């Protein structure tokens, strides 16, 4: 660490960067009453809303200074990694976003994240079971402020055109719908397999349908994938792929960027449906020229039931974001995070359509009809299984995602998914 600082100092001197460039970072984090807050709502209304939230908090807590930094999502992740790598409290933000699961467990193991179990016990009780994804050894390290679920977003017009009257609830219904759409000359489903995770969501879902909650919870802890349901889920996935429901060229289709991405194909009426999270309406709005996405043609249905599966039929698969406090942060940071979860802030969060709030008193404030429906599904679920790649950590999750894409590409089997995942998991133990 000290060597890095030296190197940085040398860099500053050597390149004659103006003193402001490197000098200013030094005095920002050390102050006991300055909270550095990183978030990824870098577009309005989210950006100005969060600025207002920070100001309100400063007003209510005289002497506390909240420094807000809004990043594009990917930039934030990169900067966060770099800050954690430096291990320097001056570089690490005081309040930041955690996705939970294995990633959080790594941060906890490295002593980077504060235990909030006691300080925020009221908020933890309020959020309820969903907080499980942000717990390590029964201690809670972050407070989820938005949790979404993954399901099929579909184009109501195209479904009607193909003569599909009710949204599929079982795999048989789903395959029948696929055939009807094909017969009507419509490509049924888009998937951004180039980015791996959109394809991987199919396997996460078949596993949530096939495996009981106990098996999944155990697997997260023990990283043991020997239960037969994991391979069965892979067989289900292979069945889906074999029915060829996907858009032409899905292996080189990206997830969300531009009109030829999986989201773009749905938004522009080129395909009838896509498996995606709660962000999908927002992404589609960003892609279409009129900024409306599919508008009132947008429909949603849950992943179809699989006959004989051990999973709870009402269980959901998804994930979310949580506010965490870094280990070296001033005490006021914890109060700030609690404030972010308050009914007032979460209501504004919901009103601005920034996500699916976790504070039950705020859920009614969602104005977007699609999201308002979705939150009912989420809240009636007995549990929401965290995305596997998040839950198991990036290393195991990455290996798993690659193996899943191989099945999409016709280069691997269900057994290969389990094998690759277990092999990566064994390295973690």
């Amino acid at each position, binding site marked *: 660490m000290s060597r890095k600082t030296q*190197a940085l100092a*040398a*860099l500053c001197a*050597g390149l004659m960067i103006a003193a402001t460039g490197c000098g200013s970072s030094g005095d920002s984090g050390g102050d006991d009453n300055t909270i550095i807050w990183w978030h990824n709502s870098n577009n309005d209304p989210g950006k100005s809303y969060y600025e207002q939230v920070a100001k309100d908090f400063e007003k209510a807590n005289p002497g506390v200074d909240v420094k807000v930094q809004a990043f594009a999502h990917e930039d934030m992740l*990169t900067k966060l*990694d770099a800050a*954690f*790598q430096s*291990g320097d409290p001056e570089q690490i933000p005081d309040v930041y976003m955690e996705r939970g699961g294995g*990633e959080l467990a*790594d*941060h906890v*193991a*490295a*002593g*980077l994240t504060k235990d909030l179990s006691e300080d925020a016990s009221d908020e933890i009780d309020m959020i309820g079971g969903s907080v499980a994804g942000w717990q390590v050894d029964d201690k809670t390290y972050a407070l989820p402020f938005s949790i979404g679920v993954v399901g099929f977003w579909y184009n109501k017009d195209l479904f009607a055109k193909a003569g599909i009257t009710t949204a599929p609830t079982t795999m048989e219904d789903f395959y029948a719908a696929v055939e009807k759409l094909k017969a009507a000359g419509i490509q049924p489903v888009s998937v951004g*397999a*180039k*980015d*791996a995770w959109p394809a991987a969501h199919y396997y996460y879902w078949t596993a949530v349908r096939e495996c009981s909650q106990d098996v999944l919870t155990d697997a997260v802890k023990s990283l043991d994938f020997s239960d037969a349901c994991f391979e069965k889920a892979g067989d289900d996935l292979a069945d889906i792929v074999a029915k060829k429901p996907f*858009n*032409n*060229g*899905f*292996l*080189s*289709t990206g997830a969300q960027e531009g009109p*030829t991405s999986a989201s773009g194909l749905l938004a522009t009426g*080129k395909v009838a449906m896509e498996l995606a999270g709660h962000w999908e309406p927002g992404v589609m709005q960003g892609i279409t020229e009129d900024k409306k996405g599919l508008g009132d043609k947008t429909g949603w249905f849950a992943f179809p039931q699989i006959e004989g599966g051990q999973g709870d039929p009402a269980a959901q698969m998804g994930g979310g974001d949580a506010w965490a406090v870094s280990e070296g942060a001033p005490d006021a940071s914890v109060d700030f995070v609690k404030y972010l979860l308050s009914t007032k802030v979460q209501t504004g969060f919901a009103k601005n359509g920034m996500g699916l709030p976790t504070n039950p008193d705020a859920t009614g404030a969602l104005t977007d009809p699609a999201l308002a429906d979705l939150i009912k599904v989420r809240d009636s679920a007995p549990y929401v299984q965290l995305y596997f790649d998040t839950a198991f*950590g*990036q*290393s195991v*999750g*990455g*290996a798993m995602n*690659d193996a899943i*894409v*191989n099945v999409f*590409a016709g*280069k*691997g089997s269900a057994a290969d998914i389990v094998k690759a995942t277990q092999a990566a998991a064994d*390295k973690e133990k």
Partner: protein
Amino acid sequence: MTHDVTEPAAAAPGHATSDGRRTGSVRRAPGGPGGTGSAGPNRRGDDWRKRLEILVFVTPALALIALFVAWPIVTAVRFSVYDWKGFGDLTDFVGLENYAEVLGDEVFRSAVGHNMVIVVGSILLQLPLGVAIALLLNRKMRGQGLLRTIIFVPYVLAEVIAAVVWLQLLQPQYGFIDAFTAGIGLDPPEQGWLGTPEYALWIVLLVLTWKYLGLAVLLFLAGMQGVSEELHEAAQLDGASWWQTQWRITIPLLGPTMRTWAFLSMIGSIQCFDMIWVLTQGGPADATATMATYLIDEGTKRHNYGIAGAASVILFVIAFAMALAYQVLILRRDTKEDTV
């Protein structure tokens, strides 16, 4: 890349200056007359001044190399013997386990294979094409400057920009190329050109050829300028045809340029990253993974920095060994010719 380009292109003058400096003949000459009047002490003062001069001029460069080249290499080697997630202290020493894992990983081995395909494929495609185009452009004709510029434009484009353009052209179903093939009655592959594992690497190779052919042509053209006009005239007087002149005179004399170019091409191919990252991210199903995409995948995406460190060291060793072998086996001829 740009560094590599300027260096060998300016190989001849570069040698001259470095030789001059090494022998010191140029420097000693002005020192000589100055030293004739007073003998010992003054000269020693000169020596000190010279040393100080060298120190002042060389230190900043050395410091930068240490900071941006040596230190990162040392760090990568250090990471490669630890199991490290990217934060916290380096505590979990695993010795050479990471290396064993990388070398045992099928994805990495296939990535090395893909790199080799790109190394060999680039040279096999670009060498004949480059020479042919350079020969054509070397003839006096109308619009010669314009044609030369057009050929060179792809090379000037940033690799990422070129890749994005090609990505759009190659979009399955909606891209220009698929629309074109469908338009003339052919069926484009179901998964698109970049989505079919069997084609993807070859498509990438074609795009790379499009991108880097300009450099080959430019270097070959420069080499051809060095072929004396008298040789051509002499050959013509002897009744050689245009083909014979090119085949027997121009191309053999282009040898050193070709060998230098092939060296650059090889190093570029081993490090190939940007184009592939934008076009396929190493997919589909790792069909276009290279060593560079592998280490980005393992490092920044999966946070296996130890594995990524080991992969980067292996990449370095492979590149270094190939460069060294090439220098010893092939480029040595040219340097010998130079010194003679």
